[in-house]
């Protein structure tokens, strides 16, 4: 065998085609310069298999061995992990900001001002106990306080409802992401294993979806040997197993206002409730805010409202109105609510009446049955046990300082029933209709002679230390109503401020990682232009080879 002029022509041809490929890849890179999550692609050229001669080997040109994407697996993992935090922190920051608006007091208009006005109006009444205008003013100021309580309470509750609605749509977005990722797994597998190509763009897309998913829920990503990924939750439940996507569900939780829980059914058909085991992402943020942060703020507000109502009633009851009436509540007495756990196995239920409107505890309580006629009482607000009791159906038991509780149905050990007088108190408080219909019944006096002593005692409640750190503790507390309200406002402000700080820090981390990712995988126009020139020159050179061969052939054909 000798040298072959057509071999040269062939080398020229494959060179020409390869450079054209390279230019095409460059074109693709330039086209995607602004595409988010796009990884710069690189053509891999390789010398073609050589031909052997007696004296050695000679190459047969170039071939394209593949198109690779510039991708840093480790960095991608880090970005996924940080996205989980980003989702969580951003969501918390947003919701806390919403809560802050409800308590906004920077420009006046806080509940505190309403307290001040109410107690001030009582001092005015004390100074003129028989004045009807003063009485109307007290009523008006009292109703303003209740309206403010209701506005904040409603706002907080609506925030919970909104979050609950968002959880439903968030879960459906997560489910469609899972389906897409499983589908991409399939496509990538098809491309790479069956057809043998690098599925660069599909992998980019899958990476992007995984990052979107990570913002929503905490995930671990495992890449299988065949290039497909498995995705599991931080707590271990599988979400995507190669080409199979599982889906999250949102069952109603009767123990939590009918809000949605989050559950997943695994391949074997077992359903796990993952509401409390979520570790990160937007979804955990929503659950946390809905069931912990907003709820505890609302509970504290409810206790403040209930405590205020009870304390005013306590003092009001001892006074006497202009018409000689006495022993009346100023605010409608708090109504007890009870809720049997939906998972109870027995049929026990309770009916509760507030038999002592001014002495009952405003905390939340839980009856935990220890047998068919006995239970322990737990104070859910303080977390302390409040004694053990026995009962028989139909005979009332006195609990929590004045609630008359009558049992019915059959109790089974382990079943629980929650009750409290403060549930939703901030949203349901009202001035007693008896008082509202006859202002003379406002008990300003301590005697039947029209004095203002009791109005004075009512106004003294403003500086009375009625609350301890968590709840109403009439007579031996360490905080006034205003102090307690201030602590609620400040707690939200502190949480909001630290949520904002976390989110800002996270944004910084995100920025760093993104810079690194861009450094490794991003498209630089400058670089691509250099490549373009490079490949164009190579293309020109290859064309020159072909022209040269053509000239050589001409020489052979015409001159020989």
């Amino acid at each position: 065998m000798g040298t072959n002029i057509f071999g040269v022509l062939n080398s020229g041809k494959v060179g020409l085609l390869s450079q054209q490929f390279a230019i095409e890849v460059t074109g693709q890179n330039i086209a995607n310069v602004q595409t988010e999550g796009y990884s710069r692609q690189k053509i891999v050229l390789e010398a073609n298999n050589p031909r052997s001669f007696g004296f050695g080997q000679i190459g047969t040109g170039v071939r394209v061995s593949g198109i690779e994407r510039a991708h840093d697996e480790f960095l991608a993992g880090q970005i996924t992990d940080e996205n989980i935090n980003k989702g969580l922190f951003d969501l918390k920051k947003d919701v806390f900001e919403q809560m802050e608006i409800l308590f906004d007091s920077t420009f006046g208009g806080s509940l505190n001002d309403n307290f001040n006005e109410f107690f001030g109006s009582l001092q005015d009444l004390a100074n003129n106990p028989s004045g009807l205008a003063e009485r109307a003013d007290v009523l008006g100021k009292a109703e303003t306080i209740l309206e403010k309580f209701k506005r904040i309470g409603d706002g907080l509750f609506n925030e919970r409802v909104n979050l609950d609605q968002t959880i439903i749509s968030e879960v459906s977005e997560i489910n469609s992401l899972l389906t897409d990722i499983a589908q991409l797994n399939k496509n990538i597998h098809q491309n790479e294993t069956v057809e043998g190509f690098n599925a660069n763009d599909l992998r980019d897309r899958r990476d992007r979806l995984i990052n979107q998913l990570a913002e929503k829920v905490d995930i671990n990503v495992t890449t299988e040997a065949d290039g497909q990924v498995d995705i599991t939750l931080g707590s271990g439940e599988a979400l995507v197993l190669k080409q199979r996507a599982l889906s999250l569900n949102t069952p109603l939780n009767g123990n939590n206002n009918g809000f949605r829980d989050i559950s997943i059914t695994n391949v074997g058909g077992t359903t796990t409730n993952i509401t409390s085991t979520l570790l990160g992402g937007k979804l955990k943020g929503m659950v946390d805010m809905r069931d912990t942060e907003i709820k505890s703020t609302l509970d504290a507000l409810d206790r403040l409202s209930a405590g205020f109502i009870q304390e005013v009633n306590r003092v009001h009851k001892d006074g006497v109105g202009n018409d000689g009436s006495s022993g009346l509540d100023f605010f409608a007495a708090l109504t007890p609510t009870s809720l049997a756990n939906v998972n109870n196995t027995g049929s026990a239920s309770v009916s509760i009446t507030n038999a002592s409107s001014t002495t009952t505890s405003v905390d939340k309580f839980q009856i935990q049955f220890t047998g068919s006629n006995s239970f322990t009482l737990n104070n859910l607000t303080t977390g302390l046990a409040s004694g053990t009791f026995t009962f028989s159906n139909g005979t009332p038991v006195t609990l929590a300082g004045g609630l008359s509780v009558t049992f019915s149905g059959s109790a089974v050990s382990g079943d629980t029933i929650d009750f409290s007088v403060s549930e939703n108190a901030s949203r349901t408080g009202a001035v007693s209709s008896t008082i509202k219909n006859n202002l003379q019944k406002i008990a300003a006096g301590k005697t039947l002679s029209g004095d203002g002593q009791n109005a004075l005692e009512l106004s003294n409640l403003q500086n009375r230390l009625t609350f301890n750190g968590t709840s109403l503790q009439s007579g031996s507390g360490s905080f006034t109503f205003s102090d307690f309200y201030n602590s609620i406002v400040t707690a939200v402000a502190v949480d909001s401020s630290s949520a904002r700080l976390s989110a800002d820090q996270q944004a910084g981390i995100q920025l760093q990682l993104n810079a690194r990712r861009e450094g490794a995988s991003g498209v630089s126009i400058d670089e691509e232009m250099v490549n373009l020139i490079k490949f164009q020159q190579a293309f020109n050179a290859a064309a020159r080879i072909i022209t040269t061969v053509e000239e050589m052939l001409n020489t052979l054909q015409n001159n020989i």
Partner: protein
Amino acid sequence: MVMRVTNQLTQQSALNNIFRISEDLFNTQNAVSSGKRIQKSSDDPSGTRQILSFRTSISQNNQYLRNINNNKGFVSNADTALEKVSLSLIRTKELVVSQLGGTSTATTRSFTAEEVNGIVSQAVLSANSKIGNRFLFGGDRVDVSPFSISASGAVYQGNTQAISLTIGDSASLQMNLPGSDVFSVDLNPTVTSSTLLSDLNRGQGVSAGSFVLADREGNSSTLSVAANGTIGDVINTINTSGLNITASINDANNGIKLTDTSSLINQALTISESNNGTTAQNLGLIGERNGVMQGFDLNPQLNRSMTLSQLNGGQGLDLTAIDIVNGSASGTVSFSSLSSASSIGDAIDLINSAGLNVTAGIGSDGKGLKIVSNSSSTVAIVKEVGGGNSAELLGLGGGRNVLTTLLQTQQALERNDTFALIALTDTLDTAINSLSGSRATLGTITRRLEDNEFSLEKELVDKTERLSDIEDVDFAKAASNLAALELAFQSTLNATSRIIQPTILNFLG
């Protein structure tokens, strides 16, 4: 290896920087335009807490100032009223002295009596003055004019209660002088188990009948009360009713207290009338309570059998001796034989058995004693012995018994009783002194009000200033911040426009 700087990276970091600076700029602009350093509570949570408590404190301060300003008139009107009465008393004293002169006759004295009669009416009018709905000298009672004159003397229908004005955090000030401290003594007996029901409610008694009492467990019982019983009988009836209720004298010693001892709570402790009666209300027991009912003030009137220790709201009476002048007869009645367990009846008996031809008894308002001469031509005048004050304490004349003293003067002039007129010069003096004392007290109240007003206003300024320190923007600082940020912003925009534009394309032919 150098870092690859890609297009997206340049764009993103440029945008990031622009947003960061423009956010700072926005916040600073907001601060400058609103004048507030803290835009939302999370900007400075601890500052927010301070702001909230300062606002409360400022608002309370304003209310205290309002209380003071609204009631200054009450005090100054009271002073004006007392000034009038004081001048009348001095005039009365002058009249008495002039009628002791040699030129005075029964006729001039009867004319003078007319004038004193006018003075009495004037004094009652002053004593009954009111501002708004409140009587200046009625204690805290607003439903009845405090003073009137009956055939047997001055009648006080107010009470001994203070009217308190809130002038600071848990600080209050008594702004009134009850009529009993100024014009007519009120012996204000407490309620004991032997107090007669018929003496209650200023002598109106308790209407016989029954009421329904229910304990917190839910047991109820209808209990009857006879009009002629005692408080002890009522307490006993309740305590033996089988209900989980213990009755006793209330904490203020002026009524009945009911304490529920139920261990099961199914309802409130409730008392209600049966057959539309008023028995329960007359006993000061109304409505429902959660556990303890402190019955209202039963206002018992003075009764002979009441002990001295039971008077003056339970503080007791410390009696020494009195001088009685009745016509040419005069003598000293010593109370040294009385102990705190003696009854007011014992004191009356001592006076009546002194052989001075007088009859002492309980005044028609049931609040103090009165003394009348058994002779229609003389007037019995009671004077203090030495520096004592027993006559004043018992309501017999002098000192705080301004109206009684005026009435006695009028009577002495009418009856042309020179002995009484001479004695009256002394008692009128004590009355004038007592009124001066009352005016001094009012002066002290006014001064305290003014002092407090001054310090409250000062505090208000201080607090407002400190609030401003916390929540308001330091304008000089904010303005220079703003300028610095604007500069930074413009520089960034400038730099960005230069960095972001050029690519190699600009330089390729």
